């Protein structure tokens, strides 16, 4: 494959994400019913505190997935077929290591350029092919709550915003109740009477033994960031070429159309509003510029031009 000389840039894409729903990412459990937020140790004014942070790994997964969706849409690919599980796993998850004595690596080292060129999502987010690791070009930052305790982890443009809130103001606990369906009169007609009878007997015996009807209703609580909380979201693209930048922005546009953070997104959690900004990095100094949306067209043309080769790679199970 002919190598194309593109200008590579060092850029940062950052955003302030405002929660439209409560945000939760599971960590430890207190007792059996309180699901706490995932926490990390953070130094606050010289002492170590255990504070909630949403992991970069979860955001990286969302971005990788959306970038792959965008790429597959450009080349019109929908069927991975019988041999496509390895390619599917590599594209959507980054692959998994499988080292077998005497086995060949699936891609030769001399085709590094070809691999990165045909599969920009692997080039961006990294991956494992056989026993070979591909380093990604995107650094995903942890999703940092914008608050005074985390000020040292936030960029300059968020310092004022961070000074207004403490993390304690952002945290909330929401409770939910799950009822045993055998208790619900709406379902009883659907159940075998013998099952309902056995359930009643069991409950009566429990009450006699003073154990209580423990399984009738379960209340569980979820610790979360209250809606309206703000988060810093950041990415650094190191020496990405225009195709990679275009694919990243394509994926980001898919992500930004319905952005979600954290878990329980099928239960009313996780929606955020999201406005990205782009900076060129000159050392540790940032120069703000417009989003390089024109690179999406370059990426589209490159992918369409190589669509058949990409599909062949996936369908042959070479990846």
């Amino acid at each position: 494959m002919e190598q194309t000389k593109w200008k590579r840039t060092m850029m940062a894409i950052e955003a302030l994400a405002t929660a439209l729903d409560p945000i939760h990412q599971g960590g430890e459990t207190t007792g059996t019913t309180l699901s706490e937020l995932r926490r990390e140790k953070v130094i606050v004014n010289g002492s170590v505190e255990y504070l909630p942070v949403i992991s970069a790994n979860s955001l990286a997964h969302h971005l990788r997935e959306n970038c792959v969706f965008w790429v597959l849409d450009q080349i019109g690919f929908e069927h991975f077929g019988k041999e496509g599980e390895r390619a599917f796993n590599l594209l959507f998850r980054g692959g998994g290591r499988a080292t077998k004595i005497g086995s060949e690596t699936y891609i030769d080292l001399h085709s590094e350029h070809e691999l990165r060129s045909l599969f920009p999502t692997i080039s961006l987010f990294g991956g494992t092919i056989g026993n070979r690791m591909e380093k990604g070009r995107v650094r995903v930052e942890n999703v940092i709550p914008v608050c005074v305790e985390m000020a040292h982890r936030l960029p300059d443009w968020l310092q004022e915003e961070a000074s207004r809130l403490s993390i304690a103001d952002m945290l909330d606990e929401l409770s939910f109740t799950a009822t045993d369906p055998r208790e619900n009169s709406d379902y009883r007609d659907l159940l075998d009477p013998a099952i309902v009878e056995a359930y009643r007997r069991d409950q009566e015996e429990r009450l006699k033994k003073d154990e209580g009807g423990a399984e009738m209703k379960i209340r569980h609580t979820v610790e979360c960031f209250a809606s309206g909380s703000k988060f810093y979201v950041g990415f650094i693209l190191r020496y990405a070429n225009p195709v990679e930048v275009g694919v990243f922005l394509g994926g980001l546009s898919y992500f930004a159309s319905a952005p979600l953070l954290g878990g329980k997104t099928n239960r009313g959690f996780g929606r955020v509003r999201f406005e990205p900004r782009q900076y060129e990095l000159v050392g540790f100094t940032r120069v703000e510029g417009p989003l390089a949306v024109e690179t999406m067209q370059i990426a589209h043309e490159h992918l369409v031009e190589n669509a058949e080769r990409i599909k062949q790679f996936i369908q042959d199970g070479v990846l």
Partner: protein
Amino acid sequence: MKDAEPLLVTAWLRDPIILDRNQPLDGILAATIIETPELREKDRHYRHFRRNVGKYGEASARAYWASKGWELPAHPYFIPLKVWGMGHGHGLWVYCSSWATVQGESGVTYFNSHFDIELAERFHLRGKVSTGKGELKSEHIPLQYTVTEKLSWYVLGWKEEIEKILSVTYALAKKRNRGYGGVRKWTVESVEEDMSVIAPDGQIMRPIPLTLLEKMNLRGNFQLAWTTYRPPYWDGRYVARCAVGGKVDRMNGS
């Protein structure tokens, strides 16, 4: 060419860091050079110069470089750090960089990943998939992180060149693409005494091959370990039985 000077390099961290070893600075500088196209180009230029020095001599190579108007290399090695122990045994020398000094608390974080069965169905993937073993296996990997304000290294090197490389080093150590090891800023300060390899009181500051110490006739009460003594630190080529701590009895060979 300016001479190298003893320096104290400090990385002021923004994020927790996942250190799987006591990280010397030479590995970080080498990784940045390899990952940065401009620095890699400069390294190729330097190697070209060294080849010319080998073939035609230093003076001739310098004259040729001057006639072409090319920039002369600012330092004689791949990494702008002095080397220690050169000439005492084939390939046993080390770069003049101490291990990182870290003071902080540790915690454990987990990295999870799994084969997305719901998504696989959407893309018409058919057939049995084993997620219990092999490359499709689900993972829940614990990694120990350290939360600290800074990491510091004593080095003997060329300050300006080190600063140039560190100005594009945004993150350190493991999982640096996944939110760990982010650097807020770097500071490089001159210090009076060189503490990069062996401190003035004889303290071993980094891994040094035991064979090298013996060849240099340096004896002492060393802590020994099999470890890598030169970057790339993941590479088995540079693994040897090294002194990783303890003190040298007398300083007569460096």
